[in-house]
């Protein structure tokens, strides 16, 4: 009995470690090859770098205009996600607490819209806001943020809706008795109670918007507005197969989010699991 337990544990660890190797080796390759020259990379991509020099990173930061690109991505992601959270929570709260025919129908439309693939609205989107109304030329970043809020709201309202249903009414009633109006009740009582759910929704939306490529590539046409994925695409086109620049560029692009993950991983995995139970 004891022997078979040891065997099954060994087997378990064998598979866990094997999977670990498979899931992380591309990151390992990125890190070791960021410090090498083209010659060293061609010779053996798996070897450790002979010497650690950061020379290519300086190059990449300059050529990618990294700070501006990072700032663009950060601003677009932060503003969109914060507004998605506030607007979706407000909407879900009002729909749950006022189940009028109109609100229920609106909720049904939101939920149903989740099966629409982005590709089937992308062309009219570009036609209306580009060719017709010229927002793509005049206010691309604001347009992009408004679109992100619109696209993100269905899923976020849906998740909030499920959670708000389980909040007892008594607290809100007490607040209303004490003279709070609807708005104060929501912002002072309900919104803070939604914090764990907001965390889950924020993580999913940050990952989506930070990494999104197709939509911003259609809307952000000027270089000064580029986000990281677009910049990476342009960089890849310019330095095709020039791995000593491409590899550190890729590493720089993924590093910000990996660092956040490293510090918040427990939080993030837990938040995602709570979202999955809903």
């Amino acid at each position, binding site marked *: 009995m004891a022997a078979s337990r040891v065997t099954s544990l060994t087997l378990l660890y064998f598979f866990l470690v094997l999977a670990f190797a498979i899931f992380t080796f591309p990151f390992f390759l990125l890190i070791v*090859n960021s410090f090498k020259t083209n010659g060293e990379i061609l010779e053996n991509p*798996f070897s450790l770098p002979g010497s650690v020099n950061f020379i290519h990173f300086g190059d990449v930061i300059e050529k990618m205009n990294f700070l501006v690109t990072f700032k663009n991505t950060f601003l677009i992601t932060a503003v969109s996600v914060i507004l998605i959270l506030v607007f979706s929570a*407000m909407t879900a709260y009002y729909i749950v607490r006022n189940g009028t025919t109109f609100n229920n129908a*609106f909720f049904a439309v939101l939920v149903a819209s989740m099966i629409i693939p982005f*590709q089937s609205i992308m062309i*009219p989107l570009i036609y209306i806001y580009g060719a017709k109304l010229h927002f793509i030329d005049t206010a691309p970043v604001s347009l992009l943020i408004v679109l992100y809020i619109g696209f993100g709201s269905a899923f976020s309202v849906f998740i909030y809706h499920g959670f708000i249903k389980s909040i007892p009414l008594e607290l809100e009633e007490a607040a209303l008795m004490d003279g709070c109006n609807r708005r104060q009740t929501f912002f002072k009582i309900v919104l803070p109670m939604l914090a764990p759910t907001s965390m889950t929704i924020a993580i999913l939306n940050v990952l989506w918007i930070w990494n999104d490529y197709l939509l911003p590539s259609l809307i952000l046409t000027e270089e000064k507005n580029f986000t990281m994925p677009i910049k990476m695409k342009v960089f890849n086109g310019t330095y095709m197969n020039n791995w000593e620049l491409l590899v550190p560029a890729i590493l720089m692009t993924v590093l910000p989010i990996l660092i956040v993950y490293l510090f918040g991983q427990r939080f993030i995995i837990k938040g995602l*699991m709570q979202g999955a139970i809903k």
Partner: protein
Amino acid sequence: MIKEKNSMKRFGYQLFFTGPTMITFTIALLIPFAYGFYLTLMKMASPTSPLEFSGIDNYVTAIQDKEFWASMWLTVKYMAGTVLFVNVLGFVLAFLVTSNIRSQNFFRTAYFTPNLIGGLVLGYIWQFVFVQSLPAIGEKWGIDFLRLGWLGDEKLAFWALVIVTIWQSAGYMMIIFIAGLISVPKDIIEASTIDGANGWQRMVKMILPSMVPSFVVTVFLTLKNAFMVYDINFSLTEGGPYGSTTMVSMHVVNKAFLETNYGVGQAEAIVLFIIVASVTGLQVYFSKKMEVEA
């Protein structure tokens, strides 16, 4: 619920609480979605010239577009491969990291990592793997199928896309499965163990049936992601070699924005929408039925 007595006040609150979502949702989704149908009935002589009514011409062209159906068929094959393997691997991983060992959080964290990175950049990472790293191993150890340039071969490039997708998505589905596995009631598992059920019987008779709700979600997500795949397709193979790995999203994007044929592109996008909506609709309908019976 407490209703405001004053109807003006009620309207004000309705506007305040649901207005922002309604407006942005209408701008981003409703208007383009509705306008999309109108666009399919129109044609343009050039990208800048005005729209002219053309009836169902665009749909006829779309239905006769051989490349469109080729890309659709390729997407269906890609879907079959990814939906199956992502779910199986995701479930196996979830099962391994819920066996109550001390380092399980560490492994969960590691397996989820690929999801932090978008498809576009992942494609570039794997380009380095397929173009530079695997051939180096193949050369060194004399393994022929690694020595080939995978992305330059029609069949292997397709499998490269499938492999990278499995690698990316399995960790995400794992999280959903973990949430399902830890909510399987422990007492029924224990009871079945006392009754003499072995590990396999427990899995088939107790665990899998109670995991149906998780599978409804994961299969839905993997199906939808497969139909909509673009980023990985674009950055890893660019549809090549010779257009052999162009999936349906990429075909639609190219039709609309490279050939600037909005009418036909949108007609194909509507066909795609109808297929996605029917497939995912049927999937949810039938698996919900299974859920009730299980």
